């Protein structure tokens, strides 16, 4: 038999039908929806007069536009309120489980899926959100889709997809102190570029990946889309099984032993062929930061912004426009640059481990007076755990406040906006123009680098504070 990659195996297992010369009809095991990209899909079902085909295979949560304070009060923004109410109504009408505001399982869709056990090895998972790639950390084919495709999944549990190419990214070596998985993925993106993986699905492998926790792996897979890839996945191993073994939804399943046995064999064949391969050494990676307006514009925190001459001449115009937006110049350093805002959270870095890292660095220090800090847990469970572990107390003592869960300042659909012209160190995934509010200037970084900025008020190498 022909050697197959893990991606091939899962994909091939889910092909219902292949259209000649066209896309495959791919069966979707698990579908997640949220308030922003689903209403038009439900409207489509109504116009066609058809039901949701497999309502038990869709889970809904409200996350994108919700406030991260006073969640027990009605949502102030009328349009956001209407959108969340619409989702509740749609779920009610079609029999879909919905984690609304204040539900103990509410949170960012890519945080709650894994933590509740809806994300399991070998699955196909989609959601109307490009960071669905996060779930790939569990050995799944998980990717973002548009609203028309959300409607397809609701209507038929399938979508039409052309099989992407296969890319392998190997990361060996051990992470230096003060370096996190966020820095690793930002480093990879800076090397491969923001479009270098377009048309591919990535498998991450290598000793550095193997040594990572599930949370760290989710951060890696989460940002696959920032290289243009549809998704990224990691073969399940003991770390995965240990994580899954703590989840009631999984351990409560009577077939659990069979499942674990099956999951143990989910991996690429040793001689499987990839269309493209990259290899990186994690031990060379230092804390990373972005200086421009897409995630490919990243560098080591103490580096200088590339000169225009170092950029492909065709791209110089876009490059300078980007730096101009940021208020930066070629050749300058961002280290030491004053910071106005810090955002910790999102589906990239809003998990318990991220809050632990942030708390570890700020413990015994104080918030810098010039910085406004938003710390937003990824879910109600993360929020609860942060309180129980004493992280919330550490944050309070250092002059910070733990807010309530949601996507928040990552895309600033709610009130958590960064004002025009202000600089924000953000643990999220996108530094696009206006992403965190019109005119906002975003510098992506790890939770440790965010913590260093929060206590010093400047772009600071977190390693200087960990010594």
């Amino acid at each position: 038999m022909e050697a197959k990659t893990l991606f091939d195996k899962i994909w091939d297992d889910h092909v219902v039908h292949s259209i000649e010369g066209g896309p495959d009809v791919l069966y979707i095991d698990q579908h997640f929806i949220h308030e922003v990209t689903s209403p038009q899909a439900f409207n489509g079902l109504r116009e066609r007069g058809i039901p949701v085909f497999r309502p038990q295979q869709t889970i809904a949560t409200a996350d994108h536009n919700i406030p991260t304070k006073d969640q027990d009060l009605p949502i102030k923004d009328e349009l956001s309120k209407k959108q969340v109410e619409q989702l509740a109504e749609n779920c009610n009408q079609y029999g879909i489980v919905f984690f609304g505001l204040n539900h103990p399982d509410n949170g960012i869709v890519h945080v709650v899926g894994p933590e509740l056990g809806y994300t399991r090895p070998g699955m196909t998972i989609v959601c109307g959100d490009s960071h669905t790639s996060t779930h790939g950390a569990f050995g799944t084919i998980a990717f973002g889709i548009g609203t028309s495709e959300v409607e397809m999944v609701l209507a038929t549990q399938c979508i039409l997809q052309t099989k992407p190419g296969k890319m392998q990214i190997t990361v060996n070596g051990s992470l230096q102190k003060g370096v996190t998985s966020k820095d690793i993925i930002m480093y990879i993106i800076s090397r491969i570029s923001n479009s270098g993986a377009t048309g591919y699905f990535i498998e991450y492998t290598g000793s550095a990946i193997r040594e990572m926790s599930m949370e760290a792996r989710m951060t890696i897979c989460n940002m696959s889309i920032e290289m243009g890839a549809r998704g990224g996945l990691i073969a399940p191993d003991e770390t995965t099984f240990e994580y899954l073994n703590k989840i009631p939804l999984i351990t409560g399943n009577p077939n659990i032993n069979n499942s674990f046995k099956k999951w143990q064999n989910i991996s690429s064949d040793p001689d499987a062929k990839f269309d493209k391969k990259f290899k990186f050494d994690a031990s060379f990676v230092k804390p990373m930061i972005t200086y421009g307006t897409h995630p490919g514009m990243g560098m080591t925190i103490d580096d200088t912004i590339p000169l225009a001459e170092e950029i492909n001449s065709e791209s110089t115009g876009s490059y300078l426009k980007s730096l101009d937006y940021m208020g930066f110049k070629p050749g300058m350093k961002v280290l030491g640059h004053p910071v106005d805002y810090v955002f910790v959270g999102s589906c990239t870095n809003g998990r318990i481990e991220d809050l632990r890292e942030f708390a570890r660095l700020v413990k015994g220090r104080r918030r810098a007076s010039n910085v406004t800090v938003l710390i937003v847990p990824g879910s109600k469970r993360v929020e609860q755990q942060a309180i129980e572990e004493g992280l919330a107390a550490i944050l309070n003592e250092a002059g910070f406040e733990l807010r309530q869960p949601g996507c928040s300042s990552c895309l600033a659909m709610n009130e958590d906006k960064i004002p025009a012209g202000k600089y924000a160190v953000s643990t999220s995934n996108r530094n696009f123009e206006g992403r965190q509010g019109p005119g906002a200037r975003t510098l992506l970084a790890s939770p440790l680098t965010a913590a260093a900025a929060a206590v010093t008020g400047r772009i600071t190498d977190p390693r200087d504070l960990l010594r």
Partner: protein
Amino acid sequence: MPKVKFDVLESTCVPLPFENVDTDQIIPARFLSATSREGFGDNLFRDWRFDKSGDRNMEFSLNNPDYRGEILVTGKNFGCGSSREHAIWAVYDYGFRAVVSSFFADIFKNNALNNGLLPVVISDKLLKNLLHLVHNKPDTRVRIDLHEQLFAILPSGEHARFEINPYKKECLIKGLDDIDYLLGIQNLIKDYENRINALK
């Protein structure tokens, strides 16, 4: 999904000579709170078209009265970032029927094809020539023939074949959509489910 047909399009172009235009620029997140598909064109490229006080930025090509037409011509990696289909609805609602670039982000391309907006990929060189021509002569007309998969700059005669999946091409020409197709094979989907459940 709206069922629209695409056949042959001949039009002048609107140039947007930037690379890596992400979907947050096409339609900023703060305008995603609607629950219908209509009206997104008003906020297409909102923060580039309008300044902070809400006045038109006359330097931006969409506000330049010289540039008109149903074809948007833009730099590589157009539509990267968020999967929001609202970006397509905005481009379409504004009046564009095709986007020409040397490279599109994956999700944007899929979303476009699902809404009758044709993404046309041409070479870097041809794109550069086209942008240059349109800049100098805004009345430059372009012809996109989906049947023949042919892209042509009419005054210069430069032309190139563009790629499109044969299934998607047929859908666009006939005005069919994927949901109709999937609903038509529901028996195959149920067979698949039965096969999988038997293995469990």
